[in-house]
């Protein structure tokens, strides 16, 4: 077990800069998830930590030792791949034992380690089967077992659940979290699925265009995003973004979304947003904070209600998504199934402005 440190790490492929001078400190035992859209540099970063990609500039340290020039086998890491990468001609036992055999561990210890890992992952009865005879979930467990038996300093996961169906993905997600709680090894996990990131991580690293947009615990990223990208990437359905102007209303402020809709800014945030008065800004509010009006919903002012003509209504069972437009921009609201009207009907909605975000469109930064 060890801490992982990245210092101004750069990766260039010719003229293309895939990773742009990133800094990251992962303390011992932490589960860190790198998340971002395709091509954001998250897998490249993971592969650089693994030693499968050379770094163009900067330093990567594992356990305090700079590993820039060390081959993967000398970094004491284990990696789980998206397509499992199990050796097809070997049984599960042989797959898990392969790394230990190459490191010339005694046979008895290999057996003991493999059996221990198999017990953790509940695959003891699958040890004599080849990958072909295993289901996707079982293969992924064997791949994790191959990582666990090595007892490495760091676990690296490269989108390990992407090949599984939705149900199995949820099951394996819990399994990975359970395994981490048991073995407590420093873990770097790459995914493009923000739900996976939020549920698994101690801290989430959101990457975009080769840079780190924000690092923080899942709840912090959700409630206090620093950039528009993070605000939009974390959360499903995504945050609503609407162009707005901030108006002064005596001591108070309000956000004007259209001729008819101007929502009051909570008093506690007035000072924070005062500098934005008169400017074109972007207003952000998550769908769950646009609901049917009801008493005691945490609204700061009664002026936060407005009427909207529903374009699309999506019943989800325990909640219903309704879509409407404000000044041509589509907005999603998450309402009670009993309160939702039909498509084409007018519905009263309430914006919970305590959760609003105001974004400077020029910089993309949340004020």
């Amino acid at each position, binding site marked *: 077990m060890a801490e992982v440190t990245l210092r101004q790490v750069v990766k260039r492929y010719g003229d293309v800069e895939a990773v742009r001078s990133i800094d990251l400190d992962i303390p011992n035992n932490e589960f860190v998830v790198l998340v971002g859209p395709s091509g954001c540099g998250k897998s490249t970063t993971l592969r650089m930590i*693994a030693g499968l990609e050379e770094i163009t500039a900067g330093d990567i340290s594992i356990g305090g030792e700079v590993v820039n020039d060390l081959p993967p086998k000398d970094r004491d890491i284990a990696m789980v791949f998206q397509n499992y990468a199990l*050796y*097809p001609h070997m049984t599960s036992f042989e797959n898990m034992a392969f790394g230990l055999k190459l490191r010339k561990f005694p046979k008895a210890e290999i057996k003991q380690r493999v059996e221990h890992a198999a017990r953790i992952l509940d695959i003891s009865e699958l040890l004599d089967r080849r990958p072909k005879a295993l289901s996707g979930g079982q293969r992924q467990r064997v791949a994790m077992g191959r990582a666990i038996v090595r007892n490495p300093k760091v676990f690296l996961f490269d989108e390990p659940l992407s090949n599984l169906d939705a149900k199995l993905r949820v099951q394996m997600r819990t399994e990975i979290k359970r395994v981490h709680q048991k073995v407590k090894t420093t873990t770097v996990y790459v995914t493009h699925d923000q739900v996976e990131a939020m549920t698994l991580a101690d801290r989430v690293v959101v990457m975009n265009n080769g840079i780190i947009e924000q690092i923080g615990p899942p709840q912090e990223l959700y409630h206090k995003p620093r950039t528009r990208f993070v605000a939009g990437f974390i959360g499903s359905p995504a945050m609503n973004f609407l162009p707005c102007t901030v108006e002064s209303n005596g001591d108070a402020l309000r956000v004007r979304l259209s001729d008819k809709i101007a929502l009051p800014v909570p008093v506690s945030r007035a000072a924070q947003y005062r500098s934005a008065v008169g400017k074109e800004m972007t207003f952000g509010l998550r769908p769950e904070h646009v609901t049917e009006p009801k008493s005691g919903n945490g609204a700061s002012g009664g002026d936060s209600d407005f009427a909207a003509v529903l374009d699309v209504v999506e019943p989800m069972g325990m909640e219903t998504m309704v879509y409407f437009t404000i000044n041509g921009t589509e907005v999603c609201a998450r309402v009670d199934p009993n309160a939702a009207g039909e498509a084409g009907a007018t519905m009263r909605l309430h914006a919970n402005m305590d959760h609003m975000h105001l974004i400077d469109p020029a910089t993309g930064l949340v004020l």
Partner: protein
Amino acid sequence: MSTAAVSVPSTRAQAKRSSLRRSRRWALVASYVFLILFAIFFLIPPYYMVVTAFKTDAEVAHMATNPWIIANGFTLDQFKILLTQTDFLIYFKNTAIVTVCVVCITMVVSVLAAFALGRMKFWGSGILATGIFLTYLVPDTLLFIPLFQIVKAVGLLNSYWGMILVYPTLTVPFCTWIMIGYFQSIPKELDEAALIDGAGHMQMLTKIFIPVALPGIIAATIFAFTVSWAAFVYPMAFLYSSDQQVLTVGTVTSLIRADVYKWGMLMAGALLAAAPPLIIYAFLMDYYIAGLTAGATKG
């Protein structure tokens, strides 16, 4: 009205299904006809070879008997004479030695070359791979002239050891090409997993790639074996004494004297010579097809 509305589409669907079934039946009939024709066409020469090998010389020479059946009794005389009174066994031994050596050399060279060219991406590897395949396109009927000088220079003219030197020019390029295709079809995560597990390149090759690419290796081995076993031009050009001769040329030169053809023994020799490749194909056919297909589609 509603009954009519339902029954019209259902009648159409039935008609479509029936038309599909008819079309499939015709496709099957046509396939069977052509496959049977091809099978007959290609099986006639081996059948003729088998029938003639078990006839007496008198029956073979007697023009009035039906050549497609054994009319005057089954005999093993042709085999007895062939094995006891000719150099056939020497040819067989020489061919076996040459073939085993050529197959070994070919597989070592082509597996190593294919692993380097297919997996260890380096500058010029693509051009080199194409270059290797291009050498396969040069026919042995052109190559034997310059090779004659080389074989002579190294003192291996009229020695079957010379064949071990020259046959790989026919086998290595194609086998390398098959193996490149096969190695490239193996997911790259497999070598990355092996690297992280602590394997070096040689361990990766021997412990991961060779076992995983076994169908490809078997396909390449069968190809090398067949080429080496059936080679004709090189031994014809480079070997001239009977004790160094191989099956293909030896059988023909010793059993055809001017215009005298010893048909019975020729066919018996051909039958015995065809036996080893036939046995190998019969046991490894599935691997052979799997190997060739992978090479063809992923290469």
